[in-house]
């Protein structure tokens, strides 16, 4: 907990200074890597998937697609495919962030300032943002799990039962089972 608190402080203080920097879309970074390579950039988005905790650093995927502000789990509206980039966070992830985004969860929204590294030679060609400052915009939010589709489940279960009975009847399984029960009885 102490580690997380220290990490949070380290992230939040420089983040305030970096706030003045213009925010870039991830799609812009990926479309013009030559322009932004090795430059300090600021991006904002949702952490999705997993926290890849490798001890001294944590790798995350940061998406800045429309689902950040209009989560699919809440709105149920589709707005195309995801757009994301890897971000390397130094020093861990504070507990306040909450779980990463996934099914029924809108992950924490953060603002990251850091160095954009396109096909970085030191890391064998990875493309990512090396975070120097991180600010938590909004912690993770869980949405109520959509209830079961009762009609689908009942229809499916009924069809399965009828089909299995029909197949058993065709192969005379029930009579054979009953007979073997009587014999053994």
């Amino acid at each position: 907990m102490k580690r997380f608190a220290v990490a949070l402080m380290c992230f939040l203080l420089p983040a305030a200074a970096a706030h003045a920097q213009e925010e870039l879309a991830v799609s812009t970074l990926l479309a013009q890597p030559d322009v932004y390579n090795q430059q300090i950039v600021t991006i904002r988005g949702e952490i999705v998937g997993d926290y890849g905790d490798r001890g001294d650093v944590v790798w995350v995927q940061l998406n800045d697609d429309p689902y950040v502000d209009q989560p699919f789990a809440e709105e149920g509206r589709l707005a195309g495919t995801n757009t994301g980039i890897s971000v390397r966070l130094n020093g861990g992830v504070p507990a306040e962030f909450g779980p990463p985004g996934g099914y029924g969860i809108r992950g924490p929204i953060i603002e990251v300032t850091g160095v954009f590294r396109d096909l970085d030679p030191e890391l064998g060609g990875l493309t990512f943002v090396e975070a120097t400052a991180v600010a938590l915009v909004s912690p993770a939010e869980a949405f109520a799990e959509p209830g079961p589709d009762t009609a689908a489940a009942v229809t499916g279960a009924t069809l399965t039962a009828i089909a299995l009975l029909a197949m058993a009847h065709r192969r005379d399984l029930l009579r054979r089972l009953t007979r073997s029960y009587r014999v053994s009885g």
Partner: protein
Amino acid sequence: MLLRPSLDDHRSIAHDLGRIIGVVAMAALVPLAWALARGEWRSASHFILLIGVTTAVSAAADRLRPKPGRAVDWSHGMVVAALTWLVVPLFATIPLWGSGHYSRWIDSYFDAMSGLTTTGLAVIQDLDHLSESVNLWRHILQFLGGQGIVLAALLFLAGSGALSLFEGEGREHRMFPNVRTTARFIWLVSATHAAIGITVLTLDGIFVQGFDAVRAFFHGATIFMAAFDTGGFSPMSTSIAYYNSPIFEAIVAVLMVAGAMSFGLHHAIWNRRKVLDNIEVRTFALTVSVTLAVTILGLALIGAVGELYPLVRVGLFHVISAHTGTGFTTVSVAEMASWSGLAFAGIAVAMALGGMSSSTAGGVKSLRIGLAMRAMRDTVREALLPDGAVVPQTYRQYGTQRIGPNLVRSVFSISLLYVALYLLGAAVALGFGYDLGPALFESISASAAVGLSVGIVSPDMPLLLELTYIAQMWVGRLEFIAIAALLGFTASTVFGK
């Protein structure tokens, strides 16, 4: 004159198709169990519906058993194989469409076809918030398609029709005289690779990536299925770039190559037989080396990747991914779209050539490339040598085989059909105003069951283009013969007397 198939012919085809659909019901039990374990109730209810519908169809088809003693003939087997790849995706869409992650039903059919044909192109939206069980289902479709849903059914089928079903799936080499024994061996190879592959990827997920154990297993299982079956779906939208790990990439590359190897080669290796003189091994090694050199040179020329190590790593991973027909990537779509000149050519040619025959890979296949080169070499030698000189026309593949005129004709016919298929898809995309390069790239990717994309395949693509890609995936996976048999059967049913 065309002979109209009898009612018994239709019954026998429907009966075998029903058995294959029964395999879908069994396969759907896995994501259902996952959905229940993870509390994904809505997805679970859709899997129950899928199981119910497929079991009911299978049970109904079971009643259409043909007359005793009537075996499935060659053309029936081919028709069943062709129909399998059209009909199974219809059922497979139930949980996909139910997830709500598709704007149009045809998009979910596109993804189901892409999964079953192990292509890996996807139009799913907001993949990163999809339920794990439906995500797992996408990968199971690739496993079923790659390992052969027909092969799975063959374990329960017998008779002369089994061989034509086997061949109808685009498989040519039998390791054993009995097709069912061959099917069992293929599943044994797959199960062994699965046990090792999933374990290694899961351990990497826990100890290298730093994921929790359940998620590491989820990533391991899904990526294994997509890699070994040369499918290319990934559980996250950024494909293999999500993992940021050279070790992970290396494991995946090994699995992709293992998946692109013919099961005959697996059999030879298991029996410690010599394989280095095998024409497919030599051709595959040659074409991978050439396309790799071209791609790396191209990447260096456009300055996309600066230094040698990343240049080789990025180039090697993408050439293996393209050549094996997998379609994984470690760069963004925008980055790949910027690869022009030789880099583009290297990747496109690698995709078009494909993996080995009787494997899960698509494309023209190394055996045909090797045989075509050998036939051309022999023709040149015959022309250069004095009259009466005898040029031995043989090749090595599990022993010495003879290159006969029928084989050469078949090799060139199928290869030309693939080229025509590549051009057809490109022409349709050109008609919608896309540039030639991306149009050709996407068309090859769909036809050769690869899955790499430079951005044309998306939820917004025109409907006709989407239908074209669906048809290309279907035709490319079945290698034309089964499709021709289905068309012939349909024509006989309609016009026959």
